[in-house]
């Protein structure tokens, strides 16, 4: 919990938080929204610019079809109605990283409207659904660097004109936790549909929050503030708690909340008022005359919906039904599309689903955590399936399998090759097994005597010693049988 909720006199208890989120997502196109400049991240300043994104006099925008395709895909994935006609508009304001003096966006007639996103389930099992007001296309601004040179701001327009969608939610969230859940669910859908890499650190996913407080039981919305500069999901949750606490205290002391823009300062952990961009926020929107209306054929819209990949909710349901896995496993396996795909390939290669799930969750994800891609993980699904099979048919022991996996994760070798080279194949030769048993009984005469005397509890200890002596190659079941037979025979 945040510092404030500890310090605050719990004024918050009488109030309810109401949150709506505006999320900007950078679309995964090769070129910008309205010109053929590269969208690649990290180029030298202003290297990716041309007459259009520099707003040179006379240059004109031409819309990127891939941006439209990705935006429509995201809209479908959020169950929106895609408008057959949408209209681009100019949002006018002056800022040095906005070359044209206006941003091309959509206003009156956005690309898509009336969607929804399930973010979890209530205690009674009903889904928690957040309404999506609209999804619209727009272009990004450039970057202003304030701390590079003394007294001046440095402008880099490489990002100017990169295609974005803005996803506006209804004010349906009632807690910071719900806002966090919404963002995680949204990011998951965006990643599943490959619309964006949705990376908050690199700025390909950005969040602004509208938050207000009202008396519990009240149905009218209170005056909201907009919180900007939210740079992580946990930051969103902390900022919302703090801003909500502030508003609640204002209301509790008989004050009124002023509608304003607030900035989240992650370093200081505080929310403070921003100066306004233009006195009255008078953006003077009007239809962009350089771009005719965007018309999408109904058949094209429908085809785009059919071409959607399986979405997270459907995948969860299918994994539970088809693989008979516990929901807790399924949640982990479907958290990302590549993880789910990896798991399914392991099963397809013949592994038993629950065992495969255990391996993926405990071993594979352990190795790939820290930003690495599971798709590039050295132990390919087919190798893991083989390894699981080798345990199942006693070719190697479980312990040996872990060793093999650890080696394969570094060397990419096949499990069978590793097992042979490292001498980890289960020994089935009766003579060898008897030899190890004899050796262990001889080396531990006390234990051997008590075991023969009927102390069956020592069976486990002896099996362990034999396994150690065999360096894991002995089949524990066979050893178990051998030792039991000796005890029965009183040898």
């Amino acid at each position, binding site marked *: 919990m945040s510092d404030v909720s500890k310090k605050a006199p719990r004024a918050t208890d009488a109030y309810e938080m109401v949150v709506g989120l505006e999320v900007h997502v950078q679309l995964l196109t090769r070129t910008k929204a309205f010109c053929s400049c590269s969208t690649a991240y990290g180029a030298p300043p202003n290297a990716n610019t041309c*007459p259009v994104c*520099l*707003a*040179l*006099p*006379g*240059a*004109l*925008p*031409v*819309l990127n079809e891939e941006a439209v395709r990705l935006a429509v895909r995201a809209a479908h994935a959020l169950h929106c109605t895609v408008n057959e006609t949408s209209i681009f508009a*100019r949002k*006018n304001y*002056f800022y*040095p990283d906005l*070359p*044209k*003096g*206006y941003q091309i966006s959509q206003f009156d007639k956005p690309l898509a409207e009336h969607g929804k996103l399930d973010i979890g389930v209530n205690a009674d099992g009903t889904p928690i659904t957040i309404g999506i007001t609209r999804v619209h296309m727009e272009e990004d601004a450039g970057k202003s660097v304030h701390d590079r040179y003394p007294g001046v*701001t440095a*402008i880099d327009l490489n990002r100017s004109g990169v295609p974005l969608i803005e996803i506006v939610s209804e004010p349906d969230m009632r807690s910071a936790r719900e806002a966090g859940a919404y963002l995680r669910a949204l990011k998951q859908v965006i990643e599943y549909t490959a619309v964006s890499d949705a990376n908050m650190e690199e700025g390909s996913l950005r969040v602004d929050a509208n938050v207000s407080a009202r008396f519990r039981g009240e149905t009218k919305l209170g005056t909201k503030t907009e919180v900007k500069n939210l740079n992580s999901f946990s930051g969103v949750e902390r900022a919302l708690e703090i801003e909500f606490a502030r508003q609640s205290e204002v209301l509790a002391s008989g004050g009124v909340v002023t509608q304003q823009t607030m900035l989240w300062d992650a370093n200081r952990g505080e929310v403070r008022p921003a100066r306004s961009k233009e006195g*009255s926020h*008078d953006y*003077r929107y*009007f239809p962009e*005359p*350089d*771009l*005719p209306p965007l018309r999408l054929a109904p058949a094209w819209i429908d085809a785009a919906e059919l071409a959607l990949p399986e979405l997270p909710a459907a995948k969860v349901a299918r994994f539970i039904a088809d693989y008979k896995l516990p929901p807790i496993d399924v949640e982990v396996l479907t958290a990302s599309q590549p993880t789910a795909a990896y798991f399914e390939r392991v099963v397809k290669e013949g592994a038993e689903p629950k065992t495969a799930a255990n391996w993926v969750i405990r071993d594979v994800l352990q190795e790939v955590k820290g930003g690495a891609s599971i798709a590039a993980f050295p132990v390919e699904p087919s190798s893991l399936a083989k390894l699981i099979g080798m345990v199942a048919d006693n070719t190697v022991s479980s312990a040996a399998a872990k060793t093999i996996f650890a080696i394969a994760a570094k060397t990419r070798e096949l499990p069978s090759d590793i097992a042979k080279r490292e001498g980890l194949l289960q020994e089935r030769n009766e003579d060898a097994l008897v030899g190890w048993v004899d050796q262990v009984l001889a080396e531990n005469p006390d234990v051997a005597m008590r075991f023969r005397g009927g102390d069956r509890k020592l069976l486990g200890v002896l099996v362990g010693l034999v396994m150690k002596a065999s360096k894991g190659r002995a089949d524990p079941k066979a050893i178990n049988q051998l030792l039991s037979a000796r005890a029965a025979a009183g040898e």
Partner: protein
Amino acid sequence: MSGSAVSAVRDAFARMAEVDAGPAGLNCILWTDEVRALQDAAAVDALAAKGALAGVPFVAKDNIATTHLQTTCGSRILEGYVSPYEATVITRLRDAGAVLVGKSNMDEFAMGSSNEHSVWGPVLNPIDRTRVPGGSSGGSAAAVAAGIVRIALGSETGDSVRQPASYCGIVGVKPTYGRVSRYGLVAFASSLDQVGVFGATVADAAAGLEVIAGRDARDATSADCPVDRYTAAATADLGGVVIGRPREYFPKSLDPRIAKRCDDALESLRARGAEIRELSLPHTDLAIPVYYIIAPAEASSNLARFDGVRYGPRVASTGLREMYESTRTRGFGAEVTRRILLGTYVLSAGYYDAYYRKAQEVRTLIAQDFREVFESGVHLLFTPTTPSPAFAFGAKSDPYDMYLNDIFTATANLAGVPAISVPIGDIDGLPVGGQLIARHFDEQMMFRAAFALESARAGAK
């Protein structure tokens, strides 16, 4: 260096030196590079395959992007700016073998009807130097009328090619919106702007338009519509052609001498077999209010990019806001400032619906007027181009009085239809133009009638 292109370019520069230079000159050409132009001409002469306009010198209005001559839009805010890319229309003309010999003077950012609003000083009318050449493409019109070139590019937003063509006694075409690429035309009002062509004759204008017309992938508003051979439109016979005479363009207040020239022109069209039909375009008188809302609104946004950040002269300041304001205040003249303020106002919160939205709705009604008459079987409309011949410098000091100059021309921009101004006579030695308006993308029909008007006058002389 004595090929035909080289000698044509030499002649153009000789004529320029004769009429344009010096304090008494017309002041129609702002920027030239004779050495470069002669090199271009020599290159054209050296080519075996000759383009449609091989060796034809031309000038372009100062709001069309060129890579070796300045593009200032007649404004201080672009003083010294040379575009690092070239407008599509310039590329097409050069590819056809035409040679750019100069950039022509204009009202600042194409806002004006007299060429009195150029920071580089006014252009004089070659027919009568006490009078304006019209605007905003006054420099291009004067350059053609003075015999420097036979073809010049202008741009039209409300009247800026047809009106100066009328005042200077030459031919001026505003094509259908979307017919010609706007890529590289510095925007004034994007939904109205169109590159236009001046010609010494109808054939010259047709030849120029034929080369620059057609779809351009760099302009999303350019239409994918086949381009006719306009130069082949000349015909002696207008049989079956229905030409409308909209009564709103012939008000009682119209100068009777202009009405007379128009009646004569209509008579000559009838003599060629055209059927003349009286008709009405009822929303015509709303065109000026609509135009002077939409054009300034779009301009206020289009001119926001002139902020001293990426190009153009910057007024040094310690703060960003001061830099913006001092750069823009110094950079823009009075008329541009007035229109930016007007445009910002009509778009601002609380006024948008009453002004901008309302104007766009009425614009729909104006466009419907045209659609209805054209759907009723009318091929062309004939009207006067302007309510008067060229006026004297300083004669129109009230802004709205000046705006009324566009009264017969702005409708075509609002509806997007093509129109041409053709000389139809003189009043006290000052030329008067008649306007032909055609259906969307039917420039061919417009040229047919224009050729007919021109040849009728030649025959009458």
